[in-house]
Structure formats: C-alpha cells, structure tokens
C-alpha cells in the first residue's frame, strides 16, 4: 500500500480551479518533487494535503486513513509535517522553543502536570529539551549553542529555513512536505540544503515531497517529479523524462508563435 494516495483531488477558489482531478501516490522512502510555473497550484496542493483548506472533492489516504476534511493539527499528528514557502516561524519564540513547540502533538502533559510539577511532567520537559537540541544538531553548528536562546527573528534567512525544517522534524512525521526549501538561498547554501534533504531520507527515514524551482536541486535528489500547470497534473516521471516532456517545456516556456496561431483562431471561431 502506498504511504499517501490521492485520488481525484479538486479545489476551487471561486472561479479559479486551483487543483483539478489530481491523482498522486508516494511510497514510503521516496523523494518526490512537485514543479510547475507560478500559479500552477503547487502550494494549494500542499495546503489541501496539510488540511489548511479542505478539498472540494477527492480522497487523501495516508497510511490507510482518509485525511480529507481533517484539521491541520490532526493531520500533523497523523504524521504529515510541512514547511511554508514564505518561512513562517514563531518569530518571538527562541530557536529552541520553536522546536519544542513542534513536539507538542507527540507529548501530553497538561496544565496540572505543570502546576504540580509532577515527576512525569519534569521528565517530559527534560526529554523535550534534549530532543529539541538533538534535532537542531542535525544542521551542524548553525543552530546550536548560543543560538538556542536567540529569538527566531534574528536568524538569517537560510537559518530560518533550516529552523522551519527542524520544527517540522520535531513533529515526528512520516511524510514531510517542503515548500520551496531552497528559495532565497545562495548556491552554496542551496548545495548544503540539497545534501540535507537527501539525509532527511537516508538518516532520518522521512519520505519527502517538495516544491522546488531550482532544477539542479530537483534533478539531484528526486526519485520522481510531478508537474502541475493551471491546477492540472501535466506530467509525472523521472527527472529526465519530465524535463524532455513537450507539455512541460510548453508550460514553462510557452508555445512557438506559429503553433499558437491555430489555437487562437480556434478560440475566435
């Protein structure tokens, strides 16, 4: 059984059909990239999977359970974590706190534990702290030591992206949705992050779906690529297959003028 299986997913915002009959499956341990020109519906695809918007129709089956219509927190708890295209950290919380918050759905001590400082509460707090530090050490020395107690807003852009991935890791997901993880990074940082994405699978065992614009990154780490255009899946396959697909080239580059003519005449007729 596939880890995530999506059938006939539809989502419209008013007259805009952001997603049209999308079918998509991913097996455990795969890294799949979702590409497409701006406005193709990539982020909407993520938003629907992670529950930010409910789908209009279609099924999202994750580990055998239908997730369509569940709240984002339930979906995160089920094992799907995500990052955001325009990094959305908790800016005034410290780096460590951001990761600790990520562990919320995997921990359970409530308000009474906090008030009475029960042994179980103290133990859990200690574990949360240790785990948070361990997760941050995944990024080398960039987010450790004096960084722990810095508020997230002082971080550089690249570090914010890393912290967001760390926060997603803290939710102990099976599947990670990374929305443009390398956007705004310089080539060196991009290379480093590409390697990290590979390690997310090899070291941590996450399955990854990512939206990415940098074709080098896509080519380097993805097992498979899905291409969206105007909310429709226009191609799917290996990077090589997709990059030579005519529809994909057309979606990105447009059609030569001679070929467009008949189409325009057709419309006018």
């Amino acid at each position, binding site marked *: 059984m596939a880890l995530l299986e999506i059938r006939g997913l539809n989502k419209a915002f008013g007259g805009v059909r952001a997603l049209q009959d999308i079918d998509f499956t991913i097996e455990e341990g795969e890294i799949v990239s979702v590409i497409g020109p701006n406005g193709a519906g990539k982020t909407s695809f993520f938003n629907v999977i992670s529950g930010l918007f409910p789908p209009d129709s279609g099924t999202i089956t994750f580990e055998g359970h239908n997730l369509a219509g569940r709240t984002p927190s339930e979906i995160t708890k089920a094992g799907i*974590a995500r990052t955001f295209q325009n990094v959305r950290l908790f800016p*005034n919380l410290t780096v460590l706190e951001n990761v600790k918050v*990520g562990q919320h759905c995997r921990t359970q*001590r409530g*308000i009474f534990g906090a008030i009475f400082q029960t042994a179980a509460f103290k133990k859990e707090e200690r574990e*949360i702290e240790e785990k948070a530090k361990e997760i941050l050490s995944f990024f080398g020395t*960039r987010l450790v030591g004096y960084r722990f107690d810095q*508020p997230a807003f002082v971080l550089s852009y690249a570090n914010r992206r890393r912290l967001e991935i760390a*926060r997603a890791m803290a*939710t102990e997901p099976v599947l990670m949705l990374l929305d443009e993880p390398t956007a705004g990074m310089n080539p060196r940082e991009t290379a480093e992050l590409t390697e990290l994405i590979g390690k997310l699978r090899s070291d941590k065992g996450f399955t990854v779906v990512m939206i990415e614009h940098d074709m080098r990154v896509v080519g380097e780490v993805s097992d498979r690529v899905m291409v969206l255009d105007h909310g429709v899946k226009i191609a799917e396959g290996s990077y090589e297959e997709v990059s030579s697909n005519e529809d994909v080239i057309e979606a990105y580059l447009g059609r030569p003028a001679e070929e467009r003519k008949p189409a325009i005449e057709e419309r006018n007729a």
Partner: protein
Amino acid sequence: MTAATATSSVGRSLSIDWRRTLRVALLTGGVTIFLAAIGMVQAFNQRTLVEPIIKFGYLVVAAVPFTAGYLIARRLQVTGAETPRTVGDVVSAAIAGAIAGAMTGAFVAFVQAVPNIREIFPNLGPQLVETLTYSLGTGGGFVANLVLGMVLAVCGAAVHWLSRPIQRALVIGAEAVVIFALFETVIDDFFDWFKTLPNTIYANSGGLTILWAVILFTVAVGLSLYLPGRIPSVRKAVTSGDERDRRRKQIILIAVVSVALIIVPQLLGGVLNELLTNVGLFVLMGLGLNIVVGLAGLLDLGYVAFFAIGAYTTAVLTSPLSPFFNPELSWWLAFPVVLVMAIIAGIMVGTPVIRMRGDYLAIVTLGFGEIVRLTLLSDWLSPYFGGAQGIRNIPGIPVGEISVSGVTPELMVYAAIALVAVAVYVSWRVQDSRIGRAWAAMREDEDVAEAVGIDTVKAKLLAFVTGAVLASFAGALFAAKLGSVFTASFEILTSIIILVVVIVGGMGNIAGVAVGALVLIGVLGGPSSPGLLQEFGQFKLLIYGALLVFMMLKRPEGLIPSARRAQELHQEEFLQDAWLDKGDSLATSETEGKES
C-alpha cells in the same frame, strides 16, 4: 526643518524656531486652561504638600510650563557628541511660557467677565479666579501668570544645562518630597507604633514642614549622587550569574517578598489593608486576564463575567438571604463549587467564540460580559439572584472561631495574599510548560500553530478556563469581603480596567501585573473603590486614559515588560533594518566565524 534649527547647533546662536515655540505655547496654555476647567486645580489644591507654601493643585499647574520649557529645549542626544545648547532655546522657552501664562491670565479674566459661564462649566467660578490670580486681582493675576509661566519655562529649559547625574539627582529629590507629602496617610498609618516620626515631619494641618521638605530633598539628592554603582540593581542581581546562582538569588528574592507580605499588613491600619485587598483582587483578575490576553493572545473584553459568576456562586451558596436556593454552606465548601462553575462558564463562553479572532473576538466577549450582567439583572432571573437588590448577608470566610470578612480587613488581606500567591504560582509554572509554549505559538501565528500540531481549539478553551478560574477566585473573595453582591459591581468598566492594569503593568509578566494593579488600583483607585490619592477620585478615568495614551506612545510594553513583548515591540524595527541591508550577510559571516 527650518534654517533656524540648522544654525542653532552653532554655539550661542539666538535663532528661534517660531512655529515650534508657538505650538508648544498654545498647547501649554490649553492644558492649563483644561486642568482649571475640569476642576482639577481646585480639587488638588485642597491638599497641601509642603506647609504652607506648596499646594498640590499649584504644583500641577506649575508642572505644565516647566515641562513645556524642558521639551522645547530638548535636542536629540547623540552619544559621543556634545549636545548643542543655545540661548535661543531658553528664549523660545521664555516666549512660550509667557504666551501660555498670558493665555491662562486672559482665560481667568474671561471667567471673571462672564460669570454665566458657570452654568456650563460649574468649576469656572469666583473660587477658581481667586486661585489662579493668586489673590492679586485681575491685572495683577494676569501679570503673575505671565511671569510665572515665563520663569517656570525658563527653569525647565535650563535643566538641560545641568549634567545628567545632577538632573537625575534633582528629579529624585523632587520625587522624594512629593511622594512623602502625597503619601502622608500611608506613612502616618505605617508608623502607628512610632508616632514621633510622622508628627515631626508633617505639620499639624497636613503637609510636610518646610524644614523636613528641605531635609528630605537634600538626603534624596545626596543619596542619588552617592549611591549609583555602589548598590547592584536587584534586577541585575537576579538575572546575572549562571543558572544555579540565578535560581538561588530568585529564591532569596521570593523569600524576601513573601516575608514582607506577611509582615506588612501587621503594620498597616484598616484602611490600607482594605486597599491592599482591593489591589489583591485586581492582581488576581489581572493574572487571569494575563493568561488569556498576554499568553494566549485572546483579547477578552468581557472578563468581568467570570468575576461575577464567582461572586454570585459564592453568594447563592453561602448567604441565608439568597432568594431561591440557600444551602448556607461555609465559604470553604462553596469554593470548590465556584471553581467548577468557573470551568463550566469558561467552556460555555469559550466554545462559541473560539473560531473568532482579533477584533471579532473582542467584540463578542464584550457582549458576553454584558449578557451575564444583564441576565442577572433581568426579571427572569431576579427571583433567583435578587436582581438589582443583589444578594446580601454573605458571611465571611470562617477560620476557626473567627469570620474573615470586610469588617476585619487586617485578616482579609491575608486571604487575598494567599489566593494571589496561588495565582502567581500557577501563572509562573504554566508559562514555561508545554501548554504555555502552545499558547505562545498560538499568539504568534494561529494558523502555523495549528499546522505544527497544536489543537488550537483545545488550547484556547484551556486559556479561557484558566483565566475564568482565577477570576472566580477573585469573585469568591469579593463576595466574602463585601458581604453582598450587586450587578453594579460587574459593569463593563471593570473589564476594561483589568485590561488597563495588565497593559500598563506589562502584558505577559507576573510582576508587571502586580505593579500595574498597585499603581492603578492602589494609588489611583479602582472602579468603585478609592485609592491612596483620594483627590484623584473624580479624575480617575481621565488619568487612566492619559496614562494609557502615554504608555502606548512611550512604553507600549508596560512598566515591567516581559522579555518577549519588549523584544517584539522594539526589535521589529531593528529586525527590518537588519533584514533589508547587511543583517543577513552579517549573520552568516558570524556563523562562519563560529564554525572556523
């Protein structure tokens, strides 16, 4: 800016920024006239600060041109560069002061000439004329106002010629005198066992004697010049050192505070203990609201509803005069029921409003607060809760043989302190827990909090319920203290004042809430109780408003801010700058430096 300002940095230039001068002058005159018209000068003048020369009302009137002079001569302070001081600044201060003084004088003359104005502004009568002409007649009064305004403004401007430490020392000296004079009743009450002290420093008719005013001033100035750098600040002591050291110091601080809280009520008289109990009530409610607004970021404007529910539950369960249901339980047995009722009320109010955000939530909770009060008052519920008559004869808290109630304020205050201690402990522990972090995350970005796995509906309800429980504590205490509950005690104003306490004190900070309650409720007075400065009574809301505006402009994070809020409100600009220019590269090179 005009060329005048540009040249004024050159030594002793005489240039004057006319627009600015005129603006300040009109503002100063306007403020003085306003203070006189609302009757503040008259009311405050009943209080003598230093017998027989300084009256409170005159001090307020004098402070206006003085401040104006100070502001007019203030220049941008640049570290490392000498701030230019020019004669021009003093001259413009003098002009502004004179214009303002002339405005006041003209206003007084106008009041004298048009006696009918009294029908519209009841404060503008012959007495005010007498006060503001300094009993010198119309012409003399005009000249006196003009000269006084000018002199005071010049004095204000001249402050900039003094060095910083001396400026500070003078301010502290003046503050010491004013505080000692204003808090005469407290000191009198506090030194009940050593009457000689208040009898010596205060004159028989009230106010400090001149001799002691001078002594106090000198001592305060001397101390402020001598002490800095010699006593480490408490704040620094508590926040410095390694973790264990800090912890030890914090424990010592807590111990000192608790011992003080146990001893102080013994030294105070009934009135002050009553006041302290009122402060305690607002600290309780402030801490509860702080959880809802400060930690979880849910603006609840109907918070007083939970206070009402706590008070009415206590009343119904303990009072023999409860009209419908009167089990006459003891307060101790009623208390757990109050707690349960608060939880139910928190869930009931919370559930329907939980999907709303920001302004909508504020408006809806505002409505809920009023609904609770109006239903209690309605014909429908009057047979059960007494309607406008309320419920009377609520017994105090029985402790052994004695009953602790408002009649025994020196005992009641301990009940308040005990409940506040519980609230402080709960707030402190919850802040740094899993649930506290969830609230903080929700306050920062609700959507993302939900996306990282926080069940925001549950977290919000929990915040509502915790807040409701703390408010119901205050309600139970209030009912036992007052012995009766009326719907009038639960008006919307109380909700607003609790919020103001939290904002002015410092949202998100326990000490801040306590200081806010002490300053607002203790000194100025609560919605229905007078504070230390009873002269402020009728101007309470005006001062609340002015204070709120001032705080929002100058210190939006509150008197004692939480670290997170201060950072949020002040480093946002810094962050943007860093983000836009070189912050990014700096941050990266910094990390690389660490790595290599």
